[in-house]
């Protein structure tokens, strides 16, 4: 217990010093680019529950958070729905691999953010572009890790399955898929993390709701306390959604020394 208490104390020291510094260098000044921490806290409360400022933004946080979460998970699930089967095909079928892999590798170095302008031209300005960008951002990590997982199944396991009487058509379900699962999960986790990076950019233009949208809007209105509140909420949601995937992974991959 005393050891734990000490660890907690040390862990809290840095944030507290930081908060104190932030407070002292912003509160009560005549000019300050950044609002003091207490004001951010009040704003966060107002965003979440209202009752402080009662302006355009009061109590709108659930709506914006829901919109972002919806897009992140929508784009992510679509990416998974496409990247998983495609990755398995590329990994297992030589013809598909020869056909598609070079093209996909060629497109991969183009950062997802560079697609933003083109996405807005093709998909229009608004949630559809954001959705597409999230999709694209999550797509490659999932695809690459799925291909890797499927391709690096230990050859010994195919022999073991064959000598135990598994028919060639059942090998995919009985061997390839379970063996590739840890790698696939790594891909899903990376993809979801990337989805949160991208959603902020995707919501920057032409979208009315969403955390990225209020951050950008607040910036233009010089409501910096809303900008910081939005960052905190996105950080929190990103953290929770990663914890969710990790918990799921731990359950499904109990057998894997790296995950279980």
């Amino acid at each position: 217990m005393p050891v734990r208490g000490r660890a907690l104390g040390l862990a809290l020291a840095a944030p507290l010093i930081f908060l104190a510094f932030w407070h002292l260098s912003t509160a009560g000044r005549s000019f300050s680019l950044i609002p003091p921490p207490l004001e951010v806290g009040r704003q966060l409360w107002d965003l979440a529950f209202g009752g402080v400022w009662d302006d355009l933004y009061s109590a709108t946080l659930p709506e914006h958070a829901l919109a972002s979460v919806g897009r992140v998970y929508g784009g992510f699930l679509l990416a998974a729905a496409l990247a998983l089967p495609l990755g398995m095909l590329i990994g297992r079928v030589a013809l598909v691999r020869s056909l598609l892999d070079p093209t996909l590798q060629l497109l991969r170095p183009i950062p997802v953010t560079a697609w933003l302008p083109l996405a807005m031209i093709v998909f229009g300005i608004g949630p559809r572009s954001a959705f597409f960008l999230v999709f694209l951002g999550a797509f490659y990590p999932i695809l690459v890790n799925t291909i890797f997982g499927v391709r690096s199944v230990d050859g010994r396991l195919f022999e073991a399955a064959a000598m135990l009487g598994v028919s060639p058509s059942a090998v995919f379900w009985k061997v390839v898929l379970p063996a590739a699962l840890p790698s696939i999960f790594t891909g899903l986790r990376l993809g979801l993390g990337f989805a949160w990076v991208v959603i902020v950019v995707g919501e920057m233009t032409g979208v009315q709701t969403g955390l990225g949208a209020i951050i950008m809007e607040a910036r233009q209105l010089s409501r910096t306390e809303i900008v910081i509140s939005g960052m905190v909420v996105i950080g929190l949601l990103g953290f929770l959604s990663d914890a969710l995937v990790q918990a799921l992974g731990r359950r499904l991959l109990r057998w894997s020394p790296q995950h279980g």
Partner: protein
Amino acid sequence: TRVRMGALRLIHSITPFFYERFMPEGMTVEVIPFESPTEGKNAVVTRSVDFGAFGIAAGILGSAAREPVVVIGSCCDKGMAVVARKDGPINTLTDLRGRRVGIWPGSTQEVFIRERLRMEGMTIRDIQSIRVSFSEMHAALARGDIDAYVGAEPGPGISVTSGIGKIVEFPYSTAMGTLNMIFAAHHETTQRNPQLCAAMMRVHRRASEYATLNRAAAIEMAVQRLGMNRAALEVSIENVELNWRMTPAMIERSRTYAQHMQELQQIRQQPDFNVFFNTRFSDDEARAAA
């Protein structure tokens, strides 16, 4: 039916926010504010919205690149200004030489400033143009990131009332006059759904006339819907001329404008004006209103 209307976060783009009161039976409107004229235009050509109000420049840029954007009405004139720091040395356009000037590429203002610079014997290369969006221009000036900007209202209003900026000039002395924003639709909408275009033209006219007559209401709307500063709007609104009709003068100025753009190499060919201008709805409405 629900009509989606794209507008800009500017005071001279306030008309669409009044559409709601004038919508015919059975029709509703959703107004979506955009950050830049090109985004408004892109929203129209990608059918993210049914109609849009944005600067003439974005329309010409799109049409010259064979995008299906069609002007069916006017939206406003004026609404722009060259602003510099009040405590700075910039008093006339020629003082901009070598300075950092906030300009948004693809905006109507960009062509005006380029033409004004040419008239003063300078080019865009004589200044340092910095890409800053309209809503950030005031903040950038206040921070000192830029020395001046070519802005759209209410930016200049904010700069003036907050004591940070001063107006260098209103750049209306070119052959393009006070030309600014248009009312536009997708080409297919004008062909396949002329009734909708006509109906929205009527809504647009009535909203435009209402807002012109009720300045207080326009200011109140900008405060409520766009979160703008009231004191600044009182100044800004003097520099705004809302309208709706594609007058022959407006079309003439637009052609001049397009010519300037080509001379400035912003476009490589003139838009096909037979497609780009569709005066039918504006003319019909003018006849009906008369």
